């Protein structure tokens, strides 16, 4: 199934020479900088293409949306889909082939075969559902792929750490799908908090999802006859998770809320909002040290405390915002808040918004990042620099998710040492830092 190598065509069928593309990009200020693909060094072979060759793993509704977002980038070509569901494979192939005016998109049902065979791919988009995100990322990075993984990107603290180690070991570029880290309203709030414009921020608020609960289901749905492996490969769908009988509801999204597959309402949006909040209080290299249990089913109102005393409070409702994935920073000199759908951030003083453009612009100059999350990923694929939501950012914010979940599951306060990555004087909590993975899906 490997493709012939040679000059690729763009979507209009025109052959693109590397050099002409480089010159055109420079002349037109195509931000970002396009690095000729030669430097991507596919297995040491000079590859006369200007495209980033992309594959997908487990693309359902959300994954399809991200894929289409990625296909807006003119330097990206989607060449192969790996999915345990035939229906999804066919859907993705149709979309990719329509986009590229070709019939090139290859289909795979097994991730090991996919990764072993497609040595031509530079990067993969992973959107399998929580249970597979970390494992698929690790396998792909070991195979030399750069990875864009949807969130929540790990099921346990140990999985997150393994993603960090693998990316570092093989020099892979990795971005988790916390796209608000690249959106102007959120960037503004984060920069206002980071820069001291609010004074020393004492409290951050982070939104958790208004559906599902922190308490998870442990029951099995009633068993149903397994479809053919070609239609739904149930063994591979389960992957590293404990076996249970097939039920079609799981593969249609009903896996949410189940302990084996999901990171709860806290992980659902906390994967986004904890990263956002931790960015604003300069805590992306750590996690809170205290988690205060709240006697409700969701974790709403849980107070977490960082080592420097700054609080991050989990909030499920709309006390602090009017949209999804909200966040807020409070300091002695004011507050800022943003959520999806805001025309502009909420601020304690209108004067703050006068500097909106400048604050965002300064962020872009300081970081040279695109305010487009997938573009940031592709830029970093070329430049080999860390993405805005790199493995460490993912792991430290997801460690917060996991610790908060463990606090809720144990129904008591827990203390955590982010340096040692262990709970303090708490063997029971420490046992929940990892889960034995089902063979042969072991890291």
């Amino acid at each position, binding site marked *: 199934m490997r493709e012939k190598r040679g000059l690729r065509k763009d979507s209009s069928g025109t052959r693109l020479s590397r050099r002409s593309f480089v010159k055109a*990009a420079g002349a037109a200020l195509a931000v970002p900088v396009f690095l000729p693909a030669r430097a991507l060094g596919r297995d040491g072979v000079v590859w006369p293409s200007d495209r980033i060759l992309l594959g997908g793993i487990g693309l359902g509704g959300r994954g399809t949306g991200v894929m289409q977002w990625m296909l807006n980038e003119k330097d990206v070509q989607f060449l192969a889909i790996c999915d345990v569901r035939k229906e999804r494979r066919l859907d993705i192939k149709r979309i990719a082939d329509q986009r590229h005016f070709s019939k090139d998109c290859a289909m795979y049902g097994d991730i090991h075969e996919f990764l072993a065979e497609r040595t031509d791919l530079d990067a993969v988009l992973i959107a399998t559902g929580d249970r597979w995100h970390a494992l698929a990322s690790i396998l792909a990075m*070991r195979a030399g792929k750069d990875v864009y993984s949807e969130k929540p990107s790990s099921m346990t603290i140990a999985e997150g750490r393994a993603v960090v180690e693998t990316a570092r*070991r093989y020099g892979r570029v990795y971005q988790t799908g916390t796209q608000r880290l690249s959106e102007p309203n959120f960037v503004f709030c984060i920069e206002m908090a980071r820069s001291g414009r609010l004074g020393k921020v004492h409290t951050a608020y982070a939104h958790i999802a208004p*559906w599902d609960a922190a308490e998870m*289901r442990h029951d099995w749905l009633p068993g149903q006859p397994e479809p053919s492996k070609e239609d739904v490969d149930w063994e591979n769908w389960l992957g590293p998770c404990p076996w249970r009988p097939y039920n079609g509801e799981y593969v249609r999204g009903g896996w949410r809320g189940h302990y084996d597959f999901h990171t709860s309402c806290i992980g659902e949006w906390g994967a986004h909002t904890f990263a956002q909040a931790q960015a604003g209080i300069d805590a992306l290299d750590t996690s809170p040290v205290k988690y205060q249990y709240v006697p409700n089913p969701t974790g709403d109102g849980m107070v977490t405390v960082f080592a420097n005393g700054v609080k991050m409070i989990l909030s499920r409702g709309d006390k602090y915002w009017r949209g999804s994935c909200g966040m807020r920073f409070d300091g002695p000199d004011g507050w800022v808040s943003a959520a999806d759908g805001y025309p502009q951030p909420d601020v304690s003083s209108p004067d703050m918004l006068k500097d909106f453009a400048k604050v965002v612009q300064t962020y872009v100059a300081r970081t040279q990042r695109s305010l487009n999350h997938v573009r940031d990923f592709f830029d970093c694929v070329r430049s080999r*620099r860390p993405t805005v939501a790199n493995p460490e950012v993912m792991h430290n914010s997801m460690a917060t998710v996991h610790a908060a979940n463990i606090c809720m599951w144990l129904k008591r306060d827990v203390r955590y040492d982010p340096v040692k990555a262990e709970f303090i004087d708490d063997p029971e909590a420490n046992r929940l830092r990892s889960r034995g993975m089902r*063979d042969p899906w*072991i890291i």
Partner: protein
Amino acid sequence: MHKLTSITILIVAASLLCAPPPCGWAAESEDSLIAVLNSGAPDKEKADACLVLARIGTAKAVPALVALLGHEKLSHMARYALEPIPDPAVDAALRAALGKLQGRALAGAIGSLGVRRDLSAMGSLAGLLQAGDPQVAQAAARALGSFGTQAAVAALQDVLPRARPENRLSVIEGLLRCAESMGAGPERAGATAIYDRLRGLKEAPHQVRFAAFRGAVLARGDAGLSVLVEALRSRDPILIRAAARTSLEMRGADVTKSLADALGGLDEDGQILVAEALGKRGDVAGLPALLALTKKGEPIVRVAAVRAASELADASAVPAFVGLLNDPVEGVAGAARAGLAALEGREVDAAIAAMLNDADPKTRGLAIDLIGQRRATGSVPALLKAAQSDDPLVRIASIRALGGLAGAKEFPVLVKLLVASRTAADRDALEKLLVDLCAANSRPAAGDVVIRKAVYGDLPDGKSADVTAKVAEMVKQGSLSIDATNTNFGDPAQGITKKLLVEYTIRGVARTETVNEGESLKIKGGKAPQAFIEILKSAATGAPAEAKGALERILQATTGKAE
């Protein structure tokens, strides 16, 4: 992220309420859980017992769990429970099981021994490195990697040349894991030797070449710099890429210098990679080399150099950036503009203000744009001067740039500029600026405010209190800043962060404001300061007809009536 409609949320919420209660997580005694495992209970009940034993199990549960290691459906759950139990009995049991298990179950047991770092399993795992079943051999290689011992290294190195192709990457993974754990300790030389051996592999895939190179550089400490420099001179794109990436993990001026020195010898691909690395490193010692790179060569490289120099955020880049503003390559000029707009510091403000005196109107226009973007209040005098320029475009751009920067202090000067305005466009721009300035400085008189409704509580639908009378009284007493606190309004919704909502009118104009508990609600709107009104009235007297009309419109806008 999943954007759900309210209907979907309702459906999901309803299904949540109807879902069966959580089970399998209950705090049962270890004895009762062991009894379930030893009984003829259904698989589901045994799986649930394993789930809880993973959290609370002790050596007592090991025999019952080990008995399930060969079970087709429950083998994994047995390991799931065994893996976190901190008792050596688990290691002994897993080791003993190695000789009895096959296939996936064997691979799983090997994986668990790796997670537990059971060094006593060294010999057994080494013997499995050449197992006929690839998943067993691969699991053994990775588990030995987790051990990170000399013996593990020896076993993995021994098998590497003979490893079957499908197992080779797992053996390399094992060696890399060993090297990482050795590299952090006194066995650094051993780690270096592993990396060097992997560097010498023929036909290794690019990610292995990267890993070996990175490790070889970092494990050598300061001496790794020479390996980095060698790679930068190699013309090997994989090594140059690896060098650029690895340099981000290295500190020191000598690393920056080596990258900067290498720039001239690289092709454009390498120059871009290294320029980006220099920017990301944040060491201003790299700035001269980057600025040199901005001046000539391929446009794409020059753009990368400007952007990397911007990242260093150092004011000494300003003259070079100013020199690039009119560069014929739009990409380069645009990157320089973006860099100047974001750079902080008085030197930058001064350099841009100086551009306002440039003979070239294009440069003056650029300066005004930059000042507007930078929102540098120190540039207001220069903008006021530019607003009187003979160049109409410069005048208009300056007036617009003053929006948001000018304050009460500039109000009289701006009124004078309007009176003396030369064109309708000047007048329109100044009129808008003065209206905005009046609005920004307006403060209502308490007597103009009528409080229609005030509510404090868990808004919009929770418990709340009508505090209309209280707020009205506070405003009557002259307060136009109302603190939303329990001290003022009591606590109608304990434990909830409340909101204060106030509906009011100012001379008939309705407004609504809401703030959270702990914040101050500001009553906004109203007339401009009396001093502004006097200045406007005075200027209108004797002003040319067009300017007088504009001044009267400003007065009307800010007072709500014709003065």
